[in-house]
């Protein structure tokens, strides 16, 4: 495809301007809010924060599978959201680890205590009310503020995604209904005998002045839960209880047919169901979508497992260290860029100058891409980027070395330029491919070991290499063609060759050859 150099030049200029604008901070000329939400993410080492690798540590005889782990992950995520961290990152790693990154957090002690605590699943008596999912409640096992405390509640790990609130309560039925119909009694059921009454909640808690709901059963009383279908084929969650749970729930449901029972994880309502029959050792929750049935069953099943999380490794960086690193790296980057620019102009003269112009476009485009892809910038990432500035020049160095050769062989100017680009291409392609292969392996390796330093470095270096191919070849060639066809390059000295060396130096302006 042939694009006239003048048009290509305008396109390149446009690319340069647009990417410079995009690369500059969000506050600068944010037309139409395009740059909103497009900030460079700073890694933990730059803005400070906490990274924790949690390891599931199930008690003897129990195993953690992918379902339970992903459920635990969701629980951890819910808790992190309570912390109000701006961009938390929570991911599962392997079969039994969860990686949590909390940028900008200062009270790491509290955060770790919060993450480590096993979750508590309870079925409560909502006192006849329908409590929509997401409601924070006090239960007779304590209020939400207790979750932040140091004390370990005797609860169970309870993973699971919160089913989307659909506004409609689910229904719960016994799979082996007990014959007697329970007569509903008045709202505000009396706590079951032996259930401890909750301590007085703290005043400033959102749910503090709310009622204290009675806990009927806990997660550990569930022996099984699985998604299945009822007689009509609708998705339901079937569950089974142990003896203690069965008798408690039987007691409750007998008295509350037609009323609600509510499932709560970490004092937050995840599901409310209407009791349709008396339930003892097994029952069903219907009125769900297939997805909700699946999520809820994972939550119930995991709730029966006690999955304490132990801190496998952690990394805390104070904010001051990060700030200093950014400043220093910025200065290093500018000095590095300037030195390279000076060297290029000194050594390669005119082509060097054009390469430096291409290098500026390269910097702007790369930076824009980091923003666009939401690349997390780490110290190693910055090092990767600064390194890629040096490597970006390599393609130009290769081409310009060829250009000198071609001119010395005795080719005319136009021919020499075209030949230089053509002949240099195979080595540029092959050498950069090997760097990209290394980047891919670095990325994979870093991803496997949860080393964000390494993935950050690999991504920035890889983006740098790809963009440098574009700018060093396409952009520089366009600049060269335009400069040559303008006809003012009359001295081979400008191209780094002595006049006597380039006998056939052709100063006549001529249309640049296309591809």
């Amino acid at each position, binding site marked *: 495809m042939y694009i006239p150099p003048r048009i290509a030049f305008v396109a390149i200029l446009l690319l340069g301007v647009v990417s410079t604008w995009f690369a500059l901070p969000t506050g600068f000329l944010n037309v139409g809010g395009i740059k909103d939400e497009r900030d460079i993410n700073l890694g933990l080492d730059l803005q400070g924060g906490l990274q924790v690798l949690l390891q599931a540590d199930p008690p003897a005889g129990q195993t953690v599978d992918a379902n339970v782990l992903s459920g635990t992950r969701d629980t951890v995520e819910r808790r992190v959201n309570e912390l109000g961290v701006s961009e938390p990152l929570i991911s599962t790693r392997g079969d039994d680890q969860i990686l949590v990154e909390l940028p900008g957090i200062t009270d790491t002690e509290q955060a770790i205590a919060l993450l480590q605590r096993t979750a508590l699943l309870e079925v409560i008596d909502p006192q006849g009310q329908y409590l929509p999912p997401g409601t924070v409640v006090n239960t007779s096992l304590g209020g939400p503020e207790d979750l932040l405390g140091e004390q370990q509640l005797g609860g169970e790990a309870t993973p699971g995604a919160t089913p989307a609130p659909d506004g409609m309560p689910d229904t719960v039925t016994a799979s082996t209904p007990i014959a007697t119909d329970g007569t509903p009694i008045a709202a505000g059921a009396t706590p079951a005998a032996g259930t401890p009454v909750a301590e007085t909640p703290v005043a400033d808690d959102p749910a503090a002045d709310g009622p204290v709901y009675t806990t009927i059963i806990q997660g550990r009383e569930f022996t099984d839960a699985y998604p299945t279908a009822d007689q009509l084929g609708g998705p339901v969650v079937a569950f089974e209880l142990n003896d203690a749970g069965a008798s408690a729930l039987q007691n409750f449901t007998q008295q509350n047919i037609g009323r609600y029972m509510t499932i709560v994880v970490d004092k937050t309502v995840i599901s409310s169901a209407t009791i349709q029959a008396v339930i003892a050792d097994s029952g069903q929750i219907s009125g769900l979508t297939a997805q909700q049935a699946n999520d809820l069953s994972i939550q119930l099943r995991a709730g029966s497992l006690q999955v304490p999380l132990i*801190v496998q490794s952690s*990394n*805390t960086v104070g904010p001051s260290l990060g700030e200093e690193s950014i400043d220093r790296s910025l*200065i*290093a980057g500018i000095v590095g860029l300037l030195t390279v620019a000076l060297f290029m102009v000194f050594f390669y003269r005119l082509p060097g100058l054009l390469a430096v112009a291409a290098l500026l476009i390269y910097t702007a485009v790369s930076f824009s891409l980091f923003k666009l892809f939401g690349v997390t910038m780490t110290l190693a990432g910055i090092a990767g980027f600064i390194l890629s500035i040096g490597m970006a020049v390599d393609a130009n160095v290769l081409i310009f070395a060829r250009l000198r050769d071609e001119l010395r062989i005795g080719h005319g100017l136009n021919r020499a330029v075209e030949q230089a680009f053509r002949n240099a291409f195979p080595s540029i392609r092959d050498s950069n491919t090997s760097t990209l292969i*290394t980047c891919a392996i670095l990325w*994979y390796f870093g991803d496997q070991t949860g080393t964000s330093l390494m993935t950050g470095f690999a991504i920035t270096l890889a983006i740098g290499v790809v963009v440098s191919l574009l700018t060093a070849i396409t952009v520089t060639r366009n600049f060269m063609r335009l400069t040559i066809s303008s006809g003012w390059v009359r001295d081979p000295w400008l191209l780094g060759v002595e006049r006597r060396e380039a006998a056939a130096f052709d100063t006549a302006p001529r249309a640049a050859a296309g591809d």
Partner: protein
Amino acid sequence: MTTLTSKRKIWYLLSAILIIPGLISLIFTGLRLGIDFTGGTQIQLQFQQEVSSVDLQAAVAEAGYDGAIVQSVDVEGGNAWQIKTQEIGEGTDAKNQLYAALESEFGPFTELSIATIGGSVSDQLSRNAILAILVASLFILLYIAIAFRNTRSPFVYGTCAIAAMACDVLFVIGLFSIFGWAFGIEVDTLFVTALLTVIGFSVHDKIVVFDRIRENMARRVGSSFEDTVNYSIAQTLVRSVNTSVTVVFTLLALFLLGGGSTRNFVLALLIGIVSGTYSSIFTAAQFLVSWENGDIQRLFGRSGPKRDTQVEAEARLAPSR
């Protein structure tokens, strides 16, 4: 005629002289491993009062951490120290007790960073680091073999590049082994990153030289293979040095001006990249000539072919691409 390749025995000797001290250090003392590989806890604290390393070491030992290593850290404001010890769990009483002890001894301080790596994590990391380097080498070998498929012996190019790259990696690891006992420099995850980058860059450089050789073979430049290699090295020499120089400039800027936490990483890159450029010219290309001339076969076997003749060289000029 004196050429680069005719002196290859000298280059081999020089390379050996450069690599062997580090290798000896590596065998006898190994590398000074950071907590990424050993597991443990690394704390960086900045004190308001002046603190001496001896006092700090003693206070930490008194708090129950005998083997702790205390080093000063280069941070704005100064008076910052790094304490490396066995695992202290984040959010445990052990950490609070240590901090309380330090505060009563030296007054208030700021926690710059604290990292704890569990034993199983560090084992996994060590395994993966070695694996990553091997996998990277294998993929690069395959890629070079594919890129040079039109030459007579594509795998020879790949093997020579990998062998020269291995010299670079050994050189860097060996030097860091010396730095370990000489300056207390530790190797961490970033060091592995640096090694992998050096691998990439080193091979990158070798491919450029080999590519010239491939091209000159096709153009039938030079009277023998050795001659062609010489000519190709001469043609790419300026480029090799210039590329290296630009990268060295940027790395030097990072080394001198960048943050303290990446300084060792940048140092490893700096050494590796200079070594990578050296080995392209003085090792990789020389390996190629040694192989083609049968030096290596002579070394290991009985009847290697003798010196190249012009006829042989002509015969093997593959019409590449």
